[in-house]
């Protein structure tokens, strides 16, 4: 039996699915990114952190082609996002799913219809099958069955995020971008969401890029972390960042919240390390 792409991903193969080189982003006179280099490998969970206004979301929006950079290259799955033809871009877009901060569900459609939008667009299929797939995604993200027929305005913030995740997963993408997935959730929902993303990442072999402020999330599911400081990124594991002397990074990981999160993380570590070796 041949080895599949997905299996390679799960074994942590070193090929970069996202390569950002020399990225410069500017808004008026304000420079947000000045020569950002970033490589994200297949099958890893990359967290992006940084202070307010350091351009975490801008970096993510630039990678998915929503924000045109002033300079630099963005390559996703071997394609240059800013020089791809319309056809290549369409192909690329079917390989990624994006979860926006508040879900960004289409307010005039029900949750199930929201999930069906990308399916209809890319892979026309009979209605009953589409409903089944939508119901399946709704179940996957841990929403109740009845949620499928509700409109976004009828859902709570946490449910909207789950529904947004279900839509992002509709095409079974290889790449998942999450913008502050746990912001605004209570700690119990937030850790449930972390577990959910971890579960999905393992069973679907996803590569996840996650903008977050949540230290617990970082520890629970991220393999590496990109910290945005001084208009650049520093990439490393938590342990590496803990040793970094940059004042902001030091304060971030050694502040009271950081220490508390790392301590509880250490207690959980047997299961955390377990998950990296489990799938074979």
């Amino acid at each position, binding site marked *: *039996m*041949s080895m*599949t*792409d*997905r*299996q390679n991903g*799960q074994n942590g193969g070193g090929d970069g699915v996202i390569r950002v080189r020399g990225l410069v982003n500017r808004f008026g006179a304000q420079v947000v990114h000045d020569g950002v280099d970033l490589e994200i490998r297949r099958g890893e969970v990359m967290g992006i952190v940084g202070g307010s206004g350091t351009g975490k979301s801008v970096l993510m929006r630039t990678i998915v082609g929503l924000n045109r950079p002033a300079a630099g290259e963005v390559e996703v799955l071997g394609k240059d996002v800013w020089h791809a033809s319309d056809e290549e871009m369409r192909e690329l877009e079917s390989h990624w799913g994006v979860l926006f901060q508040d879900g960004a569900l289409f*307010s*005039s459609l029900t949750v*199930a219809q929201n999930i069906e939008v990308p*399916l209809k667009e*890319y*892979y*026309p*299929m*009979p209605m009953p*099958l589409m*409903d*089944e*797939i*939508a*119901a*399946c*995604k709704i*179940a*996957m993200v*841990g929403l109740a*069955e*009845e949620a*499928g*027929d509700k409109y*976004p*305005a009828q859902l709570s913030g946490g449910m909207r995020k789950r529904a947004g995740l279900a839509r992002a*997963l*509709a*095409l*079974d993408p290889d790449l998942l971008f999450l913008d502050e997935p746990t912001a605004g959730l209570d700690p119990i929902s937030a850790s449930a969401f972390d577990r959910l993303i971890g*579960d*999905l990442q*393992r*069973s*679907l*072999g996803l590569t996840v890029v996650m903008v977050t402020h949540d230290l617990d999330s970082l520890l629970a599911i991220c393999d590496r972390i990109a910290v945005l400081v001084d208009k650049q990124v520093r990439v490393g594991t938590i342990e590496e960042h803990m040793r970094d002397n940059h004042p902001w990074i030091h304060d971030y990981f050694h502040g009271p919240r950081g220490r508390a999160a790392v301590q509880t993380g250490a207690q959980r570590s047997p299961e955390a390390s377990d998950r990296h070796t489990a*799938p*074979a």
Partner: protein
Amino acid sequence: MADTASIFVSDDADAVTLHAAGDWLVRTAAELDRQLRGLSLPSGRGVTLDLSDVEHLDSTGAWLVLRTERDLAARGNAVSIANLNPSFAPLLDNLRSRAGAPVPHPVPPHHTLIGFVAHIGEFTVNAARRAVQILGFGGLLTLTILNIVRHPSRLRGTATVVQIEQTGVNALPIVGLLTFLIGVVFAYQGADQLRRFGAEIYTVNLLGVGILRELGVLLTAIIVAGRSGSAFTAQIGTMQVNEEIDALRTLGLSPVEVLVVPRLFGLLVSLPLLTVYADFMGLLGGGVMSWATLDISIPQFLKQLQSAIGQWTFWIGIIKAPFFAAIIAAIGCFEGFNVSRSAESVGKLTTLSVVESIFLVIVADAGFSILFSMLKI
């Protein structure tokens, strides 16, 4: 890459095997679904679902595997999955533990007689409820205004002046242009008909009475409803979505006093003034047209106009303006407060607000016509 996926059945004497092969992915799902539904499934036997030739599996494919397994079990078969690639196991387990049956979409009610009657009933009840709400809002607004009359310092002067500028001064070009053009059209059409009686000079009477009594104020009110009434709903509605209205309340400020009263007072000043301007521009348009096509000179036009209009003609138009202003401002703000937390409802209610205020303006105008004919003016 060429994606192919297939399933076929081999039926031995003692066991049935379903062989799945290829890429079981979302892009092959439609084809697989067709094949799966075409299979004649056994019942009450031992069935093996052999996945050894499945090369790729995503969650959609996994759902199809799971669905087949369930369909088989529902027919009383003893199902077992064989040769599952270990890397697919977590996905399948994950789905199996969560996925239920899809929720059927609610069937839309059929267009029966009962449905039709129910629809009319619902509409009537909603309309009545709405009327009560508008009345309640009018009461609240009246109380707030009375309160401001007693404490004039509570009137927000700057905000009111800003509203006069936005609803009045900024509307001058569009109101002027449109009423000028209507004057031109009115004069042309009137002259065309009156020429048959050799009574072209009465075009001036038609213009004077028509524009001063009705058209000037009505056109202005409709333009302002479209321009400013919609803006009121959108502004207040957006504040509602952002919870700004709630923030005002928690700061001890009355949203009606802060948001509605300046808009109402602003429009009460600007709409009558706009009407005077519209009357002038309408007559100017008619005058230019009369001079150009009917050879009625400007002094002749003015003399005829003077004899055509009574002392009340001008005031009848102007008197209506504040009432129309109150309707437009009240409806615009009322619908703004009706916005729920979704951005979609801002758009919906803005449309509704414009339709409602134009409707009510025309109804009020008809009411005034009856009133004036009873008063014989």
